[in-house]
């Protein structure tokens, strides 16, 4: 599904006109198809000397079946061999038409600003070899976990590099920085798979934090159906992003409980029927809602996705209290109450997941959306506030922050605002509900035991609030 602008601009006459008038010509983004490999092409693995992730990265790449070449550095070659990665050598001077679908760089060895030049050395000869919809993943150490001031400075600097490179690569390619905390080296698999695959089509310029695992022993997962045997609640599931989340979690094997307001009962039933799901027809702001949900989930639940949300736009000068409060109740307060109810009753199962839906507005702010942005920034606060407590319980909480996603909601925007929203990002196009859903599925995966307290934007690296 692509929007009309993309269709027109990508048609031949459209391309000519768009080229003349300087309109951006979006690259059709590749998206995941069941059974497709993690990476449809070769990866190139590089590292700054002295890094600590060569081994874990090589292992994760080998396990994911990614055909990998490495630069000719002994440390890296040995790590690759230990991991069972049958890697070819890449030497920029060797010529040949070598192209890569992904460039992966371990920057954890950079301990001083003078060593940041390793980024230039690796990417300068390779970035032009990145294929359409390619992937760049740079891995570093969380600055706060660095031992000295120099290292912390240099590691913090990486973010400027990845965010800029994300704006340079073009052609549907994405660039991310992954902070891997000490003792989290074994937690790369689910995140690397997500970031390398077309599942992360609309995620770019992000910083992902991987910490030590929240459970002692991460379960072995079937990567095609990681949620098999898991029970997932999705709110606001009758349409839009919520319906896409339901479909994606079902694809990954989850048994679904889908919730929406009674007014949309028939829409909800249609979605549920196709996905073999249970339904809860309920307004989450109702007095007894948390208890009712806990009651329906009395056997426990593995994944809770707080997707239900609304906008009630007005500038603050024109905003009546009722308009403010209804929104705040739906988007934030009811979520807090539901979490409390489920946690108090001990219904979130071991290695459980809470996934929230924030918004770009919650990060960047938006005129006419003081109420909405407050609620969505509050969602981020909720993630930050609960992450520590949930980790102790062996569970995680994370949020996605969608940018411009093509839904009914955005379809009703005035065209000028809509076009601006679509184009003002590195991908020059809006995302699809499935892009948000795939990101949620990554958070929800039982393998994502090291991913906690993250807020990841699904915004094509929007210019707003970057």
């Amino acid at each position: 599904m692509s929007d009309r602008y993309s269709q027109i601009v990508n048609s031949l006459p459209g391309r000519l006109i768009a080229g003349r008038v300087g309109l951006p010509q979006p690259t059709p983004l590749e998206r995941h198809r069941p059974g497709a490999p993690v990476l449809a092409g070769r990866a190139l693995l590089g590292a700054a000397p002295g890094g600590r992730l060569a081994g874990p990265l090589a292992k994760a790449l080998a396990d994911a079946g990614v055909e990998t070449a490495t630069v000719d550095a002994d440390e890296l070659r040995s790590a690759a061999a230990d991991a069972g990665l049958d890697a070819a050598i890449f030497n920029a001077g060797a010529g040949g038409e070598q192209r890569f679908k992904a460039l992966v760089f371990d920057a954890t060895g950079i301990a001083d600003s003078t060593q940041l030049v390793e980024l230039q050395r690796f990417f300068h000869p390779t970035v032009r070899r990145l294929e359409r919809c390619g992937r760049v993943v740079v891995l570093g150490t969380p600055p706060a976990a660095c031992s000295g001031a120099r290292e912390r400075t240099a590691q913090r600097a990486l973010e400027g590099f990845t965010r800029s490179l994300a704006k340079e690569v073009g052609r549907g390619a994405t660039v991310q920085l992954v902070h891997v905390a000490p003792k989290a080296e074994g937690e790369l698999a689910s995140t690397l798979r997500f970031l390398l695959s077309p599942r992360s089509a609309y995620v770019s310029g992000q910083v992902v934090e991987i910490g030590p695992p929240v459970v002692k022993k991460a379960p072995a997962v079937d990567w095609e159906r990681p949620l098999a045997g898991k029970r997932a609640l999705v709110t606001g599931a009758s349409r839009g992003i919520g319906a896409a989340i339901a479909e994606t979690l079902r694809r990954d094997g989850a048994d679904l409980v889908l919730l929406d307001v009674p007014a949309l009962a028939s829409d909800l039933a249609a979605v549920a029927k196709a996905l073999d799901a249970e339904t809860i027809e309920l307004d989450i702001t109702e007095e007894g809602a948390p208890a009712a949900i806990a009651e329906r989930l009395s056997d426990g639940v593995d994944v809770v996705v707080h997707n239900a949300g609304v906008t009630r736009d007005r500038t603050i000068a024109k905003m009546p209290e009722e308009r403010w409060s209804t929104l705040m109740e739906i988007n934030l307060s009811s979520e807090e109450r539901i979490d409390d109810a489920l946690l108090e009753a001990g219904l979130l199962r071991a290695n459980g997941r809470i996934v929230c839906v924030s918004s770009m507005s919650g990060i960047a702010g938006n005129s006419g959306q003081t109420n909405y942005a407050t609620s969505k920034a509050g969602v981020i606060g909720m993630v930050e506030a609960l992450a520590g407590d949930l980790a102790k319980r062996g569970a995680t909480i994370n949020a996605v922050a969608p940018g411009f996603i093509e839904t009914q909601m955005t379809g009703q925007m005035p065209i000028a605002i809509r076009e601006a929203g679509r184009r003002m990002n590195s991908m020059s196009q809006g995302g699809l509900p499935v892009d948000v859903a795939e990101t949620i599925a990554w958070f929800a995966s039982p393998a994502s035991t090291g991913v906690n307290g993250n807020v990841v934007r699904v915004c094509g690296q929007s210019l707003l609030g970057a």
Partner: protein
Amino acid sequence: MNPKTRPVAVVGGNRIPFARSNSAYSKASNQDMLTAALDGLVDRCSLDGERLGEVVGGAVLKHSRDRDLTRESVLGTRLAPETPAYDVQQACGTGLEAAILVANKIALGQIDAGIACGTDTTSDAPIGLNEDLRELLLDANRERSTGGKLKQLARLRPGHVVPAIPRNEEPRTGMSMGEHCALMAAEWGIGRDEQDELAALSHHNLAAAYERGFNADLVTPYLGLERDQNLRPDSTVEKLAKLGPVFGGPDGTMTAANSTPLSDGASAVLLASEEWAAERGLPVLATFAEGQTAAVDHVHKREGLLMAPAYAVARMLDRAGLTLQDFDLYEIHEAFAAQVLCTLRAWEDPVFCRERLGRDEPLGSIDRDKLNVNGGSLAAGHPFAATGGRIVAGLAKALQERGGGRGLISVCAAGGQGVVAILEAPGDGATAKKTTKGGKR
């Protein structure tokens, strides 16, 4: 059956200078060249009228009329006509494989002495009838009546006259060996400069070998050539750097100079039991200690076409209980500079050694000063089946010259094959040690 084996001596060798294709030897046939190489060896080792146990040889590009090329060649030499012979063919490994076969019979006591030899011409190459024409002629031949024959021949069309010239193409991939090697060079990250350096060094080493008379008892002049025609003593990296790529596309790294040229020539090497040599007062230059072949799946498993020697050497080392560093000299056939460099890099590489060779540790690197010290195929040229004989005789002599030691031979071949061997010379390399310590000889 003889339960014991005995040492096999490399007694001597001879070859004709190698010529560039369609040049000095353009009118010489494989049989002419092989006969010349054998006769030179007969002279050198006083084999006039001698009935040898066996002569084994072959050619890669062979005419159908050369059914028993080696036997026919032997009949033209001054060896006793009662000397049996047979042909072998294993692409560029033919010459070395022939030596392994002769050595094995000697080791088993089945024969006392034999010659391994090989020849190839790319000038007098066999041209086949176009397949349609061949079928048409066979059809005509099957007709009984003249009318029937004429009817068949009436099918003759101009297109039928286009000959089928043998192509330097891998049958299962449709790619030339050079294109295959370019893929390997890219996979192993082999740069242009290192290839050109290897090529220039090959020329310098071969030129120096001729200068100090090293080849005087290895090469016999033929048809006006005294030295290998391809040799460019003044070759430099700077000059080589000016050449454009011939394989691997516009930004390829393989040129006409760091790839072997098509060439013509023949070689022969005499192997015998130590007693047989002693009885005739012939020297034992070295013993033929080990031989090994290996093949890779370049068709389905994407292994490099010319990587088989890397596997063969690893297996042979294990069998012989040696490490890659236990050698005083290395002879790696320079089919392409990139092939040699890929092989060396593969042995150093932990990934290749673990994943493909199944070893915990890489085989490691070699002392490059011990590699192809008297020049290699890039300088001498590479008449396919003649290369093995050139290398065995040259390495045996070099080992003897340095007062003993151990040498490794590695030859890559079409079809994803490799043939490798070990030669050992009695002595501790005293001459070599003296040379390095005492300076000039």
